[in-house]
């Protein structure tokens, strides 16, 4: 088969404008497919990973935006007494934009020692001591630091908040990498928040044996007698509910991914059909020279495959590079979805390119292989 590789390459190069347009079309479509895929993966991670399934969020009842949820900080002590609760971390949330945005800045204020034990954060620069010691010290997620070009020692201001970057962190939860962590008191006393003794939410970590739903019910019942009623949900459900508008959009976007696949399929199939129709006589000549119909079939499939794989790998590679480099995220109401590249996404793009390449070539390849030699030679 490889003996005919020069013929395959040169045949594609013969109509280079057509080939390049098809390859670039496939690249763009796979780029979009991978982008949509990364958003869906981000959402899935946010709602389905272990942290999302073993952590509860206590929020003020009937409130959605973090600025409107104001729970007493001492609720943490009462929650800690409920069976099944391992630890509680009070969190003050501040965001520059409650609506959906791709450049949302979210501050989470939490006690330094709690943050260090509750989160698996790995500092790539800076240190925890500086965070604990400095009142306005901030740990910035890697994605956000990349997007905003922040480095340790820099002052970062947005709205009424001004912090000193004392560390950049990585997290196994990609969405965390779009957050800025500060000390709880710093955020509570920020001008405009007026939240001394109040927090946005309590993050509840469960023991291994605890049943999340039962503990959530117990928390809400225990706090029902307090000054502010609460709604407690699994972190995954809380985040999905908070992002419900975006979830619907992202759910719809997966059709866009399928549309991209269909687009590449029709694009490559059209080009291959045109290429085969241009060369009916040539395929007849090749068969006259002794090429079996099955070999002609494979040559056409190889052409279609090559266009699709080159375009697909370009698009997939570009998408992964842009996702890795841009640190993009979409967020709403203090919750963010990270667009992250992944090997799974790359493999899906590559396999899809291969599959589309083969499927797109089937009909034209069959046509070429079924060519009646004498009839085709007369037309040539």
């Amino acid at each position, binding site marked *: 088969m490889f*003996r*005919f590789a*020069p*013929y395959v390459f*040169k*045949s594609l*190069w*013969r109509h280079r404008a057509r080939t390049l347009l098809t390859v670039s079309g496939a690249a763009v479509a796979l780029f979009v497919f991978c982008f949509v895929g990364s958003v869906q993966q981000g959402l899935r991670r946010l709602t389905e990973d272990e942290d999302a399934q073993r952590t509860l969020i206590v929020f003020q009842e009937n409130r959605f935006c973090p600025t409107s949820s104001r729970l007493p900080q001492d609720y943490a002590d009462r929650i800690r007494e409920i069976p099944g609760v391992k630890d509680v971390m009070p969190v003050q949330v501040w965001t520059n934009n409650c609506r959906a945005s791709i450049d949302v800045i979210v501050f989470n204020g939490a006690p330094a020692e709690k943050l260090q034990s509750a989160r698996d954060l790995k500092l790539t620069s800076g240190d925890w001591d500086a965070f604990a010691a400095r009142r306005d010290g901030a740990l910035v997620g890697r994605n956000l630091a990349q997007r905003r070009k922040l480095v340790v020692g820099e002052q970062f201001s947005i709205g009424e908040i001004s912090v000193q970057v004392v560390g950049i962190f990585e997290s196994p939860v990609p969405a965390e990498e779009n957050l800025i962590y500060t000390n709880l008191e710093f955020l509570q006393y920020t001008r405009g928040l007026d939240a001394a003794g109040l927090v946005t939410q309590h993050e509840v970590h469960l023991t291994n044996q605890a049943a999340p739903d039962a503990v959530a019910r117990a928390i809400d019942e225990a706090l029902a007698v307090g000054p502010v009623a609460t709604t407690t949900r699994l972190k995954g459900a809380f985040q999905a509910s908070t992002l419900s508008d975006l979830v619907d959009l992202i759910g719809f976007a997966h059709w866009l991914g399928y549309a991209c696949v269909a687009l590449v399929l029709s694009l490559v199939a059209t080009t291959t059909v045109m290429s085969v129709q241009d060369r009916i*006589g*040539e395929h007849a*000549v*090749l*068969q*006259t*020279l*002794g*090429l*079996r*119909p*099955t*070999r002609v079939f494979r040559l056409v499939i190889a052409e279609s495959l090559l266009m699709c794989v080159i375009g697909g790998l370009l698009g997939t590679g570009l998408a992964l590079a842009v996702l890795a480099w841009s640190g993009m995220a979409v967020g709403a109401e203090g919750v963010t979805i990270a667009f992250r590249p992944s090997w799974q996404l790359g493999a899906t793009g590559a396999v899809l390119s291969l599959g589309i390449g083969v499927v797109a070539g089937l009909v034209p390849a069959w046509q070429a292989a079924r060519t009646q*030699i*004498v009839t085709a*030679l007369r037309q*040539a």
Partner: protein
Amino acid sequence: MALVEIRNLTKRFRKGDETITPLDSVDLDVEEGEFVVMMGPSGTGKSTMLNLVAGIDRADDGVINVGGTEITRLSRGQLADWRAAHLGYIFQTHNLIPVLTTYENVELPLLLLPMARAERRKRVEVALEAVGLSDRADHYPRQLSGGQEQRVGIARAIVANPTVIVADEPTGSLDVTTSEQIQVLLGRLNRELGMTMLLVTHDEQVASIGTRRLRLDRGRIVEDSQTSNGHHQHRLSATN
């Protein structure tokens, strides 16, 4: 036993309600080394017979045996394999692959045979030398004249050292001078390399290079004669 044996060969076409029979129960034997030229008016079955012998068309009745292989019994894939190993086809319109160089065009049939690259190179060089185009190996068909293109087509037909070469009006699209050069080349290949050839032409001058002349009319062979080349060849054989 003749190299090519044709028995009761019949080919029919349906054209609307009418059945056309371009070949009607034809019998023919072609000996090894013969240069058979087929002539006759258009539509008398010359090209049809050539295509059937070449294994690129199917007969409705009859048997074709080439070099001991009954090609009328072969499947499509088997026929392709047989063509690769045993057939050289010279087209009227050259039919070179435009994206391949002269060298690559001539090498094409060898790619289908179990052959090392060095052996392929040697054979292509010999074939190109035989047609006088060694210095055009890297040229593309668009860079060649019509006559040169046809010589590349001939090199491609002979490169695998086939059992039989068929040529369908190989000079039909060439000017007089170029046509004469091609005739000389084909005659030389037959005489010097002993290649068995079947050629279709309308041109009496082209027909004169053959050793045997067949005239077809309404699907039948109506005349079968040795030419002076044939007598000459037989005399040479007898002397040797």
